[in-house]
């Protein structure tokens, strides 16, 4: 009876074609991210949603819903760039960069959200994953991190 370790070590390797298919798929995925960034438009209406985060100052200025979009505003001290990630943009850190409003010192963006529950979080300076500690949380089976859930009005 073969030893399990030996049997495992003798596992047949992946066909070369499989590795080639993966390489191609990874390149295509990177290319699609680039196209989405270049071609993304913001045909969105605005609504204000404020969140309060640990270590981050934020303001709540009430709900302001215009058309089918929502505006998110957050204050992140000392950040050089902030992006919004969520299931609405495939959790891509470069898909929804936020813009600093010099008048309020808040990072803001607008997104179109269909009715329903949406997971989201913030990526600070391209490396730090931050969640909204006062909004409803959700676990991630894949990545072990919690996301905050935003439920648009009317969903």
């Amino acid at each position, binding site marked *: 009876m073969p030893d399990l370790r030996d049997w495992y070590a003798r596992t047949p390797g992946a066909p070369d074609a499989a590795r080639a298919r993966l390489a191609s798929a990874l390149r295509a995925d990177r290319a699609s991210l680039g196209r989405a960034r270049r071609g993304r438009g913001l045909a969105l209406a605005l609504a204000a949603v404020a969140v309060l985060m640990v270590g981050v100052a934020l303001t709540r200025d009430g709900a302001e819903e215009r058309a089918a979009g929502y505006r998110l505003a957050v204050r992140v001290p000392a950040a050089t760039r902030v992006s919004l990630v969520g299931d609405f943009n*495939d959790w891509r850190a470069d898909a929804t960069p936020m813009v600093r409003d010099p008048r309020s010192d808040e990072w803001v963006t607008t997104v179109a959200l269909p009715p329903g529950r949406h997971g989201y979080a913030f990526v600070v300076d391209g490396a730090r*994953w931050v969640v909204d500690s006062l909004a409803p949380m959700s676990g991630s089976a894949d*990545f072990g991190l919690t996301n905050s859930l935003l439920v648009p009005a009317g969903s």
Partner: protein
Amino acid sequence: MTPDGGLGLWTSVTADDDLVAQAVAGDPDAFAILVERYYADCWRFARRILGNEADAEDAVHDTFLRAQRALVRFRPQERFKAWLFRILTNRCRTLVRTRRRREHWFPAGDETIAVTAARDAAAPADARLADALARLDPDQREALLMKYGEDMEYEEMASILGVGVSALKMRVSRARAAMRAMLGDRAAYD
């Protein structure tokens, strides 16, 4: 940096962290190195968990695609391989759940045994081992292969599977006992 050659060895955490940082910064070659470094390990695990090449390819490829998109979520204090294997394990579990058409259930008294239709066509001894593994509880199979195949420490397995060390030791112990009972070899996994 050189790939580890697919020997299943843990590589330098620092080196992996540097590659992740470079990949996050937009260097496509950095992630390609990580793929080369861990593809064989991922393939071997998926191939043995799922029992066939087609499912293993789906699981491994989905894992690396998800990893590429989520590199920014990787925390440097964790080993990259553990992070990657967490994704891989979840992909394998999803495939097991959604591809039950390949499984046949044979009632055996009060016990129902699942046998994968796709089995190793190699030596009969290998086939018996593969069959025995396929009959294990999925959680036990995962733990057994991580421990005896990937030579992982229980603490790393715990971080991957989200289960306590004690529970994992129990799973491995029960898996070993079940394998011995099926194969009649008391010394195979000592």
